[in-house]
């Protein structure tokens, strides 16, 4: 259906080309080594009581690429992010970022090293204005040290630069009008936007977005995708979790699929989306079929029948 879709027409730029080239000859196996990995993960395991939330054997993230991480609900994607970014302690495992071992490193140091994540359930700093939220993201602020903070002259200049950058981002994220409102007064979607914009203020090397577009208006999503691609042009690596397949297809260079804690498949978007295992575990048969009224009836029945079959299967398991 999407063989000649127009959305791949976006101007193919250097970085994109580089990324595509890098991925071109790669095997489609889970855990395949990449030519220039920024993040290398080995044998990360996290259990909650009897439940193994994450059990990743080996995964590499290519530098300068946009990688999507997909998988059914409860596959362990967020938990995996938590391990990598120091918000939770893995039961075992090792990972390196830019060659530097990162297990056991506290969250703020991970972020400082250039690996920044967003939260799926947003964490707006409610009683700070949207602008302050943004400014907070900036790194190496002179005014963030106690003694220098007392002398405004030392940090005013930098603050202005930061503000400028923040304003830029806010405009892109359609939040400029909310600049001076408390972040706690934002709608669900706006919080998502702020969450992502704030992470970008950090100017990280690797940005890890946890469902950035869930709940964001599709028209806005579309315009933001351009921005994400820009990030790649600026040399940033993007790793994101998303359930919106249109988006995954549109911007990702590489897709990693997780299920039940493990990586089950890897590959370029198109390949992955036609992978029967992925369709079976994740996409479902009709994920991109239009639910137009004419077809609807039959599809409904079909889907139902399928579902029932599946449920039976599962209950038998």
């Amino acid at each position, binding site marked *: 259906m999407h063989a000649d879709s127009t959305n791949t027409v976006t101007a193919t730029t250097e970085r994109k080309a580089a990324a595509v080239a890098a991925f071109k000859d790669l095997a489609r196996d889970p855990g395949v080594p990449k030519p220039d990995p920024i993040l290398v993960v080995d044998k990360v395991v996290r259990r909650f009581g009897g439940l193994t939330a994450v059990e990743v054997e080996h995964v590499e993230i290519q530098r300068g690429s946009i990688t999507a991480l997909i998988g059914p609900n409860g596959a362990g994607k*967020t*938990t995996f*992010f*938590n391990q990598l970014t120091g*918000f*939770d302690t893995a039961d075992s495992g090792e990972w390196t970022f830019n060659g530097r071992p990162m297990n056991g490193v506290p969250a703020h140091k991970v972020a400082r090293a250039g690996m920044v994540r967003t*939260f*799926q*359930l947003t964490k707006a700093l409610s009683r700070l204005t949207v602008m302050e939220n943004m400014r907070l993201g900036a790194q190496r602020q002179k005014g963030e040290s106690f003694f220098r903070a007392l002398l405004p002259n030392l940090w005013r200049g930098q603050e202005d630069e930061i503000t400028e950058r923040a304003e830029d981002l806010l405009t892109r994220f359609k939040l400029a009008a909310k600049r001076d409102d408390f972040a706690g007064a934002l709608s669900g979607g706006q919080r998502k936007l702020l969450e992502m914009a704030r992470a970008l203020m950090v100017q990280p090397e690797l940005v890890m977005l*946890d469902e950035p577009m869930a709940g964001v208006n599709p028209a806005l999503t579309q315009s933001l995708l351009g921005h994400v691609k820009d990030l790649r042009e600026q040399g940033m690596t993007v790793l994101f979790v998303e359930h919106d397949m249109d988006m995954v297809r549109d911007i990702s260079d590489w897709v990693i699929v997780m299920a039940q804690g493990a990586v089950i498949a890897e590959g370029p978007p198109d390949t992955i989306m036609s992978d029967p295992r992925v369709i079976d575990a994740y996409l479902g048969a009709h994920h991109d079929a239009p639910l137009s009224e004419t077809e609807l009836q039959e599809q409904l029945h079909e889907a139902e029948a399928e579902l029932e079959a599946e449920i039976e299967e599962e209950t038998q398991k």
Partner: protein
Amino acid sequence: MNGVKIVVTTESGQPVAEATTNAQGTWQVPVDKPGKYKVTLDVATLPKDAAVRGGSNVRTPTVYEGNMSTVLFALQPKGAPGQPAQEEGGESSFWTQAAQLAFEGLNLGLIIALAALGLSLIYGTTGLTNFAHGELVTLGAILAYAFNVGVGLHLIPAAVIAVILAGGLGYAQDRFFWGALRKRGTGTIAMMIISIGVALFLRYVFLIFFGGQNEAFAQYTAQPGIEIGPISAAPKNFVAMGIELLVLIVVGVALLRTRTGKAARAVADNPALASSSGINVDRVIRIIWTMGGAIAALAGIMLGLSQNLKYTMGQDILLLIFAGVTLGGLGTAFGALVGSLIVGLFIQLSTLWVPPELKSVGALAVLIIVLLFRPQGILGRRERIG
């Protein structure tokens, strides 16, 4: 001890007088000037099998004008010199003491737990850190006192009436005060400070009507203890502990199992969503307040029964109540029980090593240490990030 020779000299050694004990073992020496004297017991005149306890046979009392000064030589059977302390009659061993203290710890811990349960329930459902909870405890005790001593009822019916009345007052408090504040959207911090105001208000109302002194219920005061193994306790203690434990378990289980109990936890989590699920949030909160008030009152009565009543009695244990609630894990009913028991036990048991004036220090230190290893409290659960 008859016939023991006593020599009295001045401090510098000039002899003043000598005396010999009479049949009762007493003696008397008149001195004419006030000052320090030296009194020596002539060991040689003691019977063969007796010795002066502590070894020294010299005492140096100071005699003041117009008064007599008594000098005492305690005698003991002569024994091996190295081990006098062990033989002293009646000293209880470390373990008997520990057993008694453990019992006291349970006794106190259960009372705290009862008070803590009320606090925890209210905190759990409304997010209110109620600094006036101590006053609710006092209120129960004073109400029971009013019916007991004022009206002249026996303590048991008086207590029942007080608990019911306190429950009603708890209801009224939410119906007319806290509920109205919630409706206005008053934040939890503002509510917390308001509760400090309420505490002040109530406490001084009590002071005006009850007075500043200690009082006791008409029955069961100073009930003589009975010995059970290493423990000596009054029968009222056992009955009280039984009631406390029963109430704690019943309420705890009710919270876990009954529909209203679950609804209470749901309201605690997310009032708006609870309302959206068809729960009458105000009604649930009122039930909780009613129960909280009644349980706090019961705690007050139990405290008054085991100790005495005073207008600050609740305030004085408020910190322990908070410690219990926190140690167990905020907002969990069984947590309050476990936490309070630990607090009670540590208060008492720590006196085996620290001076009793510092006994709260022991319990509070344990609180800090436990939270170091379990920041979410003993029964609390960690929240998921992300």
